């Protein structure tokens, strides 16, 4: 049944759809995608999204570098990725068409704002002839809709100027798509009313456009589809991006550890949203400082940790470079510290808004001296919540800096999230030292026998005054020591402390078909694409196994045992084979690398093709 109650529309039922909204970076495509996503979530579909926007805030209008896109994959079953190739492309101008057409499946639906296809814009996009006229789009199902004109017409009764009117055309486009896929408009209308509460004329103009687009879809008798709600585990859901989940996870870690959260951070793409999100939640006692630089950000967090807070710093690759020395200090001080690295394309400034997994080696070895620390990796947007709590748990329990690896794809991508029950979150609280531990003295490096962690005595505790520092020190007393044997011993001890964590983390799970000889091993954001590729291979009758690492240092204790069950290990990574190298050096197990350094996540289809040759 159509949302307006009429039932005469014939809707073709499909199980999943991939739509890409593309336009100029000023056209509001991210917002359009977001609203469509919300409507789909409300409708009960499973979904996954991928924004793709330029590094420039406003590249010149109408040009290829200025194109901003948002892809959503929604379905009536559980899905793992934002989809390989869109079946539907909404292009608001010639540049958006040109930049995205190559991805559209053959025979796909093309919805174009025909008003934007004027000579000036065609020139900017580099079209010699008008693609709407020259037959180059013949292999697609094309809808040319004069969106700008119809938008201006729709808002003529509202008190808005021409510029404001034209800016509403994204809502017209959204209305069209909502009609085609039978999405309810209510959530978007409510959202517009709230967003423009202080400018009711703008709210009403946008709502009019949304409705006009919807009505156009119906009167023009565009193709109409139906994607039924997915069967998801019962519970209350919300949509969450990786960065949002990560921020929530840090707050949860603060609550569950009973330690106030302190974030030192310097703005950097694509990590800044964590700073933004945490800054909003001061009612949890969250202190956020926008530091003068990356080094200040991490060292402020170290200072806060010294004072008994949960010290956290968030950054992306270039910032991690700058923080390296301070992370080594935290390691030497043996203070808890969570370092969140939202990886992006490198080296140097590289690709700030694009994703990559190329900081694994940096996390492992990117400090001078022998400086091991635990590494946790998120693997889906919602899993960033878990990863934050896990990183904090390890940092607090083992008195160590921990690096949490996420990436730009997880950070900005969104998925529905079954909201966890707070009662079921782990208790990660610790005890501060309160008494002398050697007679009347307090030794800051007298360790716990099980965890090898030193006691955490915070300023303000009478009788436990002590000094710690970056210089090598004797175990136990913490006094400066240049003794050769002591340094050898301390080096081994710091490694042993991290290694011992393998007893305290989940074993590596694997999912294997009976008789499978090939194991696909992944880490981080390749989780969804690997899962989807394996699912497709199984549908083709192939036998395959998969496993996904959530701890990169130490590896789960059973990792070698799992890997040795299979003849062939395949490791897809968005880098030149960093996990492959670690696996080889740790276990003497060779693997086949599938590498992609394009700033974009793997597509399930490309992995499927690679794997097909191996199974």
């Amino acid at each position, binding site marked *: 049944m159509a949302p307006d109650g009429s039932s005469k529309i014939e809707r073709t039922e499909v199980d999943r759809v991939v739509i890409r909204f593309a336009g100029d970076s000023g056209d509001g495509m991210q917002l359009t995608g977001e609203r469509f996503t919300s409507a789909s*979530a*409300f409708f009960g579909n499973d979904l996954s999204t991928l924004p793709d926007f330029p590094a420039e805030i406003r590249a010149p209008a109408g040009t290829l570098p200025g194109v901003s896109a948002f892809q959503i994959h929604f379905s009536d079953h559980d899905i793992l990725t934002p989809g390989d190739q869109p079946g539907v492309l909404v292009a608001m101008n010639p540049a958006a068409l040109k930049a995205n057409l190559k991805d559209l499946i053959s025979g796909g639906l093309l919805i174009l704002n025909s008003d934007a296809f004027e000579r000036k814009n065609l020139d900017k996009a580099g079209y010699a002839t008008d693609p709407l006229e020259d037959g180059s789009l013949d292999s697609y199902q094309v809808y040319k809709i004069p969106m700008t004109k119809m938008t201006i017409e729709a808002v003529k009764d509202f008190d808005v100027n021409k510029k404001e009117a034209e800016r509403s055309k994204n809502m017209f486009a959204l209305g069209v798509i909502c009609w085609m896929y039978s999405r309810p408009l209510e959530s978007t209308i409510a959202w517009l009313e709230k967003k423009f509460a202080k400018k009711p004329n703008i709210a009403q103009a946008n709502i009019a456009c949304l409705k006009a687009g919807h009505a156009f879809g119906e009167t023009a008798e565009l193709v109409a589809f139906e994607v039924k709600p997915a069967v998801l585990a019962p519970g209350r*859901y*919300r949509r969450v991006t990786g960065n949002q989940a990560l921020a929530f996870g840090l707050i949860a870690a603060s609550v569950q550890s009973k330690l106030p959260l302190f974030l030192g951070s310097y703005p950097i793409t694509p990590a800044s949203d964590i700073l933004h999100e945490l800054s909003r939640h001061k*009612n949890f006692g969250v202190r956020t400082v926008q530091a003068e630089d990356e080094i200040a950000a991490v060292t402020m967090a170290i200072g*806060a940790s010294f004072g*008994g807070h949960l*010290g956290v710093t968030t950054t992306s690759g270039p910032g991690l470079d700058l923080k390296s020395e301070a992370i080594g200090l935290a390691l030497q001080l043996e203070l808890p510290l969570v370092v969140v690295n939202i990886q992006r394309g490198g080296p140097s400034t590289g690709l700030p808004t694009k994703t990559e997994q190329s900081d694994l080696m940096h996390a492992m070895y990117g400090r001078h001296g022998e400086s091991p620390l635990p590494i946790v990796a998120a693997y889906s947007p919602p899993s960033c919540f878990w990863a934050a709590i896990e990183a904090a748990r390890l940092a607090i329990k083992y008195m160590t800096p921990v690096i949490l690896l996420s990436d730009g794809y997880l950070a900005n991508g969104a998925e529905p999230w079954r909201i966890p029950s707070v009662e079921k979150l782990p208790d990660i609280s610790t005890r501060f030292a309160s008494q002398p531990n050697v007679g009347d003295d307090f030794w800051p490096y007298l360790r716990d026998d099980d965890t090898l962690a030193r006691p955490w005595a915070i300023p303000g505790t009478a009788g436990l005054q002590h000094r710690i520092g*970056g210089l090598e020190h004797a175990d136990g007393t913490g006094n400066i020591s240049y003794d050769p044997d002591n340094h050898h011993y301390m080096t081994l001890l710091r490694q042993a402390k991290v290694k011992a964590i393998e007893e305290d983390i989940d074993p590596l799970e694997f999912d294997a078909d009976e008789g499978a000889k090939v194991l696909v091993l992944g880490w981080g954001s390749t989780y969804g694409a690997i899962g989807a590729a394996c699912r497709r291979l199984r549908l083709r009758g192939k036998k395959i196994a998969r496993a996904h690492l959530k701890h990169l240092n130490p590896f789960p204790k059973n990792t070698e045992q799992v890997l040795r069950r299979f003849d062939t290990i395949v490791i897809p990574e968005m880098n030149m084979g960093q996990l492959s190298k670690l696996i080889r050096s740790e276990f003497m197990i060779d693997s086949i690398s599938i590498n992609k350094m394009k700033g974009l996540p793997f597509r399930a289809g490309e992995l499927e093709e690679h794997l097909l040759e191996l199974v």
Partner: protein
Amino acid sequence: MSDEVMNERGVTEGSGPVTTLTRADFASDQEVRWCPGCGDYAILSAVQGIMPELGIPREKMVFISGIGCSSRFPYYMNTYGMHSIHGRAPAIATGLATARPDLTVWVVTGDGDGLSIGGNHLIHALRRNVNIKILMFNNQIYGLTKGQYSPTSEQGKVTKSTPFGSLERPFNPVSLALGAEAAFVARTMDIERKQLPAILRRAAAHRGSAFVEIYQNCNIFNDGAFIALTSKGGAGANRIYLEHGKPIRFGDDAERGVMMKPDGSLAIVDIKDVGEPALLVHDEHRDDPGLAFALSRLANGPTTPTPLGIFRDVERPVYGDGMEAQLRRAASEQGPGDLTRLLESGDTWQVGASSN
């Protein structure tokens, strides 16, 4: 939330007895290892000497340093302390003081640590007015790395790394601090037996950032850098003691002074030429830092008459206080943090039967 946690663990209440501490109570059991004759000894002694007067329990005191000779300081104090990495002490102290407003946090740094590798953190700590006391030992040389020129070395300085003489104009640390919006700025010397502790007391009493430049003689790599002020005769001729509310005058017989010229600049004058009423009266609490800045420019390096004392002492909002106020405001406006409510904020939807 932080208060609750601290109380629950009985930490913030664990203050020891305050009344009977002596200088010796603030000395740690570590052997002091500066070179014999180093100016640092006198500063350590002065700091340990004023500590008992402050009435603050040792466990509430934290000394944080970076790298360099001066940065060994925390090891010698029987308080909490951290010997961190080069230049970062002001940032570490910012984190600690912001997380724990109940603590008294001191930073000990040098001209290389504070003005070169850590210059950025120093100016931003002062700009924010974080509640930390920064003691910058200025010996105009890199000591721990064995004698390279520093950002306060005079132009033309011949060192191991500048055999043909340094090409760089030095920083004037007091000018720099004033330019960074510091609310409390002072200068003194390691050998100032009375003024040094007096200024340390004032710095301790100041709420917010306090910046104290301490001329400190490195008798190994830069001996005599302050000879113009420390030599016989130099004390009278070249030390200009700034006293609040008093005309600025100096000299063996207080025969010279500082006057403002009609163009607004300051000049050193003979009182017999201009008369005492023409002298500038020092005002530490002047809101506009212009005059304090002009005073800091009277000497470019300690080779001519040089002002010592408190250049500026004004009240400005303290960073940590602002942070605490925002936390309280958020808790009163949004209610105390509720994790379930946070996770269920925004658009949510129910799949299947509601668990309620």
